[in-house]
Every structure is written in C-alpha cells, then in structure tokens.
C-alpha cells in the first residue's frame, strides 16, 4: 500500500508502507490518499477526481535541449525558407535567427519561455506571410524536440 500526499491537486510526497506504521506528510495541509502499490504515481503528478475515483496524471515531459542545427531542423523546410526571407523585413524574426546563428550558441533549451516565445513569434510571422500553418500545434511539435 502507498500513502500519497496531495496538496492543491499535486502529489507532493509518498510513502510505500510495508508494515504497520503511521505515515504522514511533513507539508502542512497535505491530504493523504491510500492507493494500491500497482498504481503508477510519483511526486509531480497531478490528481484528478472523477466520480469519486482518483486518477494520477503524469506531468508532461520536460522539453529537451538541442543543438542550434538540430533546432533549425525542427522547422519544416518551407518554414525555414519563409523565416529566412522574413529576416530582411521583420526585426523579431531576424533577432531570433541571429541568436541561433551566433557561434557561441551551442544549445537551445526548449523549456525556456523566451525560446518558446521566439518559436511562436517566428511561426506567427511565417503564417501571416502566407505559409499557412497551425501555429499552436507546430509550436507544441517543435518544443517536443522531435522532428517531423
């Protein structure tokens, strides 16, 4: 049996109990849920209760870090070509691509908010320039770090 400690719908601690003992969280306000050992749960999971039954939901995977060339390859060739053509007229696109072209840029952390904002900016500009795409779904795909 596992005692899972939940605060604000998030799992904040856990004790796997094998013999009779009292298990508690040291975090004030945390609620204890008793779950079977077979249930997959860990700190960082969220808890959703549907019809009185708890479901533990794993957090989304952390976006990876990739090299600058790998990052560029996450865009489709049409997106890259359109972004390249926009550099001359759009300072936002030019600035973002400038950072990628800087030889000191060895890694692109896809988890960073500034990187994610840059991706969205470029995709929005590419879309507005006539290369029709679903900005949010393409952004999600690029942040996953998995090429098409």
């Amino acid at each position, binding site marked *: 049996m596992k*005692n899972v*400690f939940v605060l604000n719908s998030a799992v*904040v*601690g*856990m*004790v*796997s*109990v*094998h*013999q009779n*003992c*009292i*298990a*508690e*969280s*040291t*975090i004030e306000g*945390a609620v204890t849920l008793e779950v079977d050992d077979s249930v997959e749960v860990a*700190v960082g999971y969220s808890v959703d209760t549907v019809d009185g039954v708890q479901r533990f939901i794993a957090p989304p995977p952390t976006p990876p870090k990739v090299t600058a060339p790998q990052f560029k390859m996450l865009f489709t060739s049409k997106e890259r070509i359109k972004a390249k053509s926009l550099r001359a007229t759009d300072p936002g696109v030019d600035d973002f691509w400038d950072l990628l072209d800087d030889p000191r840029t060895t890694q692109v952390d896809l988890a960073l908010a500034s990187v994610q904002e840059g991706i969205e900016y470029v995709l929005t500009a590419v879309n507005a320039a006539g290369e029709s795409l679903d900005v949010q779904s393409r952004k999600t795909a690029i942040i996953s770090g998995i090429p098409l």
Partner: protein
Amino acid sequence: MSTGIVAVLGNNSSITYTASSETKLVIAASSDVLTGDIHVKINGIKALSVGVGVIVADVYVSAGVPVKIETEANSNCIVSALES
C-alpha cells in the same frame, strides 16, 4: 512485528513506527552528493552525516515506544526492522 522493510519514504514524509518488541531499525538514506548532508530526522534529530553517498543508521527501539522518522525535501530513505 516482522523483520523486513517497514516503509520507503519519499521527500517531505514521515512515519511513526511502534514496535511490539525490542527492535533494531535500520535506516538507509542517500546523502546530498555535494554537501554530504543527510536530510533525514529521527525523533526530530537530524541524522549525522558520515560521508557522501548512502549511509546507514541503526536505531534500537523498545517495545511500545514510537519512533518518528522524517525526510526533508529532495530526500528519501528506506526503513527496515530487525527484531532483536
């Protein structure tokens, strides 16, 4: 009471264990890899660091006397019981 693992504690957790006969509790915890600190308390007293890596603390408990073992953030431990 039976010999074996009592509980596996994740971070920010505690157990209160009361043995029915004289018992040795063996507590294995990983220490902070940088500082060597042990983030485990036994009856409110922080376990002493004996080096970086895995440490083992032996706690002898009498029958009926509760022992509280708690972990801090980013810490975990395994508590096992050995009947004396």
